[in-house]
């Protein structure tokens, strides 16, 4: 598990990108919790962390592909995106790079 950032580093309802273990990852803070996806949209590499976040999805800013934050599923067609586990320990946002999230254990933001 890698300490990616602190809770306050990401504004509510937005995402930010970070490189962890050599992988570019987008971290999202939604009203329903924290999520991590690969940063690059599988379509044409758009920066997902810059997308518009709803309760449960993010929309790529380049061509509006939409992905489920929890599962990475492509909601408007096309390829899915990889997900990573996120845990909040106090003020620290921890990421399990390459391991899909387990939601039962996750603290809400």
């Amino acid at each position, binding site marked *: 598990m890698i300490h990616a950032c602190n809770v306050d580093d990401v504004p509510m309802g937005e995402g930010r990108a970070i490189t962890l273990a050599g992988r570019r990852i987008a971290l999202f803070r939604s009203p329903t919790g924290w999520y991590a996806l690969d940063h690059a949209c599988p379509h044409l590499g758009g920066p997902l962390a810059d997308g*518009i976040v709803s309760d449960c999805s993010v929309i790529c800013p380049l061509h509006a592909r939409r992905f489920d934050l929890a599962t990475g599923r492509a909601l408007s067609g096309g390829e899915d995106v990889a997900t990573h586990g996120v845990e909040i320990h106090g003020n620290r946002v921890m990421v399990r790079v390459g391991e899909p999230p387990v939601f039962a254990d996750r603290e809400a933001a």
Partner: protein
Amino acid sequence: MTFRSREPRRAGIVVIGGGIAGQAVCEAVRERDRDVPITLICGEPVLPYDRVRLSEILVSGEDPDTLKLRPPEWFEDNRIEVRLGRWVHWCRPDERLLGLDGGETVAYDRLALATGSQPLMLPIPGADLPGVYPFRDPGDCEAIRLAAAGGARHAAVIGGGLLGLEAARGIAAQGCAVTVVHLLDRLMERQLDAGAARLLPPALRALGVDVALRKSTERITGAARVDGLEFTGGERLDADLVVMSIGIRPEVSLARSAGIDCRRGIVVDDHMRTSAPDVVAAGECAEHDGIVYGLVAPILEQARVAAATLCGREGGPPYRGSVPSAKLKVAGIDLVSVGDAEGEVEAVAADAEAGVYRKLIVRGGRAVGAVLLGDTRGAEALLAAVQAGEEVADPLARLAAAAAAGPGDLPDDAQICNCNGVCKGAIVAAVEQDGCTTPREVMARTRAGTGCGSCKTMVIDIVALAAGGLSDEPHYLCPCRKQTREDLAAQIRGCGLQSVSEVAAHCGTGRDCGACKPALAYLVSEINANRHREERDARFINDRVHANIQKDGTFSVVPRMYGGVTTPDELRRIADVAEKYDVPMVKVTGGQRLDLLGVRKQDLPAIWRELGMPSGHAYAKAVRTVKTCVGSDFCRFGLGDSVNLGIEIERAWEGLYTPAKVKSGVSGCPRNCAEATVKDIGVVAVEGGWQVRVGGAAGASVREADILATVATKAEALRLTTVFLQYYRENADYLERTYDFVPRIGLERLREIVLDEQHQAQLLERFRIAKAAVSDPWLERDEPYHPRQFTDLDEPADDEDAALVGPPSGGAR
């Protein structure tokens, strides 16, 4: 007491009282009889307006004119003579004669009394102090709003009924602290049971409205003006604004002095007849079966029966009393009450934490009432069930079924629009019999959905159902929650919503897919004249960082150059910045600007600082460029000073956001070198003046801009283009460019509005108010909305030493 069945004499029908009841009587009479002369006498100096929506005006500060039930032309078209600002001093039923102020007399054949009510004022010391108001007419509304917005520190509303709570919310919306003071131990005791009433104070407190229960006000204190309330027991509340909303007193003085039977109200029978021959009464002044109704739906029912009687059709359905139903119009609190709030069998579904309380009340096996708080699904179905006295074997199951009921499950007589008293059957008939095919047509014909707007979605669903799904899909701003721009605008205005998250909390819009969040953000900002609460998560990335995202995740920077005119000094700074930050491309744009392409997000603040130029808004749905030709300054053909007009226009509009981008141009002669004929807004100098054009395009499709008008001076050109811009800002759908908007509205209709002096004055006033709250977004370089507005997590945050910002560690570039 009978009505003689003869042709009316010329004196015709006279209606006294220009409220909702008086208006409804006029309308219902005219529907039945195209010819009978009708005279409407209004004491207030304005045409009948929708008093129920006064609280909306208190929140929004909109012109009370928008509350008018019908425009002046309607009265002309329907040949209704209206006497405004006239009071009736006496009535002699035996002579069929009325005496007006000033000594004039008016004869009638048949008379309708719709004199309404007066607000009750507590007869306590201090009730007449300056700063104490009733909440009854637009004048009260304006005075309260001005006091609340203009420095009152704490307001008190005496009376925790429907109207008192709406008044309190309106005061809170002006940023003034407010306490509702109520005599009893629960709010809205006439509509709510204890269980629902318990959930109300916490919900109100969340909206900035404090509640003090079991308080009996003994005096209102203050020397020159009010400074507080004193309660029984000596307790005190400081208040420099007091609104009294403790109830109404039926206005019966005219009827009483005419010898007509009155108790609390004017006594009427099942045909709304009073004790005097050929005189009916309806509305808040009337007492039927011992009950005076103060809610709009019963008043409309009474008006229809009264009109039938006036037209000599007493054979029609009699009035047997109404099931009262009330809806609280307060942001963030959904509350509907129908019929009785308590009874022998009660089924309750409640979730205190979520603020949800749903109850169905049953007596003798029949539905007699419902209370819905926090989740009002099925309100129409339950109202219909109570009105019909539906047999209910399993109340809990009935409550659950109501929540799941669709428009198809409603009976034809289910009331859909409470403001205008329209039932489902009337909406279906408009489709099936009158051939209406769209919700818009149905609303125009039946008036359903044109009051407070809260039933519009239901109206649309019923039209769709009646038209067999052929009804054209309304243009939803939020398809997930089926909310149109008009629906949402009505809710934002009516409830005083100031941010996207408040809208989301109110109706869920924006929470599901999130795609409509930028449209909501625009709507909230426009309606609040840019005094909304900005929430950046609702904005597209371009509007979070005020730059245009490129295919590789970098951004482009276009500084403002008014009219496309620049200076050597600006060019030098642009060149310096481009070199220092390794900007991969510098390009001249189609709108006569310089574009720095390929800029890293984290470099944006420093670049803006070093440019020292304002944002050109090239990334936003906003006023973009005003392209100009050199005009009369240098050009040997130039007729008009296009450069200066372009600069003036650009400065006047700079910083305003719009439904979609607005590109403009000003040409100094008809050779049109600034291509103004294919701009959203274009001005072309012609012999003797300026031609103003709108709705042009030169993109994927090409459209020649329509000529709105030709005006004589530069000042008029600026004024007319500004009027159009504001009209577009207020009425276009999000992302609807002017080249779609202008044909949708129609050039003729557009001209009627933007060339009308009264509309011009109002649009310009709202434009000025919106513009006054505009600032340069690039100033966020020094005041970011978040320490990481411009940085991802690998880099130091924005507020750390800028010199530490190095090249990114890879990835997003």
